[in-house]
């Protein structure tokens, strides 16, 4: 078995230095569109390109509602007057005023936090990005974040997916079984607004109506760093997007 030890040592440290230092490696985030200045004619035609109503005409051009955006790139690729697009990943916003009033976890939660992940019916991409948080690049254990299989040990409920009718009861049971105080982080456009699935006979169009969501992480899927930011926001270790500039360069037009 010594071969594994040698191989492990030879690989060296892969982990990102985020949140202390901004992560700049290529391919870690798809980015998001940002409010763009356009004439009102062009704005109207651009808004029509959006399949999920994430774009809205404004006085100066086009505004974006990040809760809806599904990274289809149609507002940049299918037009000659594209939306501005911005990298970064510190996208998480506070969904409830609990956070804005500064209510935080008690001191007992300032160190290690256990997270229960519930997939309430997504496409698997969000879930896969959550899994990446445990790979050596993101290694969330170093920040005191641990995934737990049981709601009894969980401090934070991380929900992905549009909430199917079949997952309502399991999600409710999981939430109720968690001890208080607890936080809910909803990650991904589907969990926030239903995404491309929207509201239908099978999808609730997001988990917000069903659970008291504290932190919302946009993206389709949100990259691992965005989810990490969401978790840091949930435990009060990072400011929300747009509230003030952290090292990751928060999106300046956060919808929250």
């Amino acid at each position: 078995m010594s071969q594994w030890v040698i191989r492990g040592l030879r690989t060296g440290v892969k982990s990102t230095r985020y949140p202390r230092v901004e992560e700049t490696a290529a391919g870690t985030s798809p980015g998001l569109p940002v409010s763009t200045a356009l004439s009102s004619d062009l704005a109207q035609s651009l808004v029509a390109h959006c399949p999920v109503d994430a774009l809205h005409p404004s006085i100066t051009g086009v505004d974006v509602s990040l809760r809806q955006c599904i990274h289809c790139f149609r507002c940049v690729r299918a037009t000659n007057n594209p939306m501005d697009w911005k990298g970064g990943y510190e996208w998480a916003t506070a969904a409830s005023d609990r956070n804005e009033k500064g209510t935080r976890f008690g001191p007992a939660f300032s160190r290690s936090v256990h997270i229960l992940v519930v997939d309430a019916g997504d496409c698997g991409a969000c879930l896969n990005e959550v899994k990446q948080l445990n790979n050596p690049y993101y290694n969330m254990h170093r920040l005191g974040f641990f995934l737990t299989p049981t709601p009894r040990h969980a401090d934070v409920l991380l929900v992905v997916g549009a909430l199917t009718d079949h997952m309502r009861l399991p999600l409710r049971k999981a939430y109720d079984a968690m001890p208080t105080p607890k936080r809910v982080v909803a990650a991904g456009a589907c969990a926030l607004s239903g995404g491309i699935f929207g509201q239908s006979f099978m999808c609730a169009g997001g988990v917000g109506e069903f659970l008291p969501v504290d932190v919302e992480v946009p993206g389709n899927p949100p990259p691992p760093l965005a989810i990490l930011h969401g978790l840091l926001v949930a435990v009060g270790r990072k400011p929300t997007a747009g509230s003030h500039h952290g090292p990751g360069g928060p999106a300046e037009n956060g919808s929250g």
Partner: protein
Amino acid sequence: MPAELRELVQEAQARWTSRVGLSLDGADGTACQMECEPSELPEICNWLFSDRHYSFGGLVVEQRTRWELRYAFYGSEASWVHVVTYLSDAGDRFPSISGLVHAADWHEREAEDLFGLVFEGHPRLGDFVLHNDVWQDGVTPMRKTFDGRKPVTHRAPDLNWKPRRIVEETGAFAMPVGPVHSTATAPVYFQLETVGEDVIRAQPRLFYAYRGLEKIAEGRRADDVLLIAERISGTSAFAHSLALCQGVERLCHVEVPQRAASLRVFLAELERLRHHVAAIAGVCESTGLAVAAAHAAILEEDLLRISGSLTGHRYLFGLNAFGGLSTDFDDAACGRGAAAVAQVAEKLTVLQGMLSASSSFLDRLEEVGIVSFANARDFGLVGPIARASGLSRDLRKAQPYCGYDAIKFEVPQESEGDGYARLRLLFREAEQSARIVSAITRDLPAGRFRIPETDLRQGAALGWVEAPGGAALHWIRLGEEGRVERYRIITPSFANWHGFRLAAESFAFQDFPIILATFALSVHENDR
């Protein structure tokens, strides 16, 4: 016309004469349609499946002026056979073929649940896609009269509801797992039934992530449905959007530019490689070999970053478009991507070497979770799972698309059908994908990346790809103004979940997570 198909048509004519309406479809004559009375269905399907050794692709139910049931079969050399039968809208009873063609079992259960059709002779109907503890009786969401945009009133939650148990011996024990279980897993419920050490029954209960995609696609514009196709399974997004594109392109007689076809192969193989590396990481993790799992996870993230920096999206969303791709890529950037992929492939080979020398790891995989060739065929398993049991049908070879017939690659095959065979197969396929990626970027054709405007026509067509998990079939029917009338999504995970219990049963409890990992099945792709 392929020789295989010509011979088949002659025999069908001799056997059923005028009772079966034979017609050849497609300019290249590679698809044959056999129209028959419902009563003839079992015999014809059985003949195709058992005598002619055609693979069962899937069942497409359409409610038009009357019921139209289409059983798609494919052979080994560019030939499709669609067995089609009709019944007036007033009737709803068809003979079940699953007694003879077991691969159709779940297809019939799904059609019964969602359309309210009855398959006479089927042993087990009900409580499948629509869970009986949630849905009231008699709801048939796929019928045209059902409005898919409105929420449905369900039963009041019954906290004491339990799924049916099969093993009822004294001392028998059922261990419930899921639907929220383990750390960061997709929702699926297993009831593992046992009388001691071994798992006797391991039937999964799926469709917790059923999003009703086939229904919500209806009435939408075709290019919006493309976004739904990408989100059938986020980890096989490119494959599924490609299948839909190819269906629409076949329907509208669009020839994709050579550059687009080559780039599609490049991206599809990049996705397959990433899928397989993720599966390998899952196997390492399930056996508790943490260092190997970490190494494989590094390679998966490397591939996600390669995808992300080249295309803008880590899961290749937003790339496929009718008539080609939504954007072009710089040749040099593709070359850099391929070089990075080659590095990953090299590291993967090292990892494979180290794993094959770790006896404690091999002990957990060898002769565990065996699927025999006969079972794989009867259950209609597809993709790497089937090929690990010696069933080597691959749509890239059998029904080539995107110019795969001009690309040199092997379809690896193993015969043992155990966990280790499946792992070896993942490594070998990953290696082939990496080779295709580097070969195709060396020689990218110049020219357009897309036909500017695709004229959407009315009608229906089948698109298919070999997705990372196996054969994926998309049946698309377009109506007026390019609106979707019917979208049937047949996925490899649906076929392979059907056969999963074959591997899990009669093995010990502690093998269960490992067998599950070697199958690397997607719940989302199955549930849709």
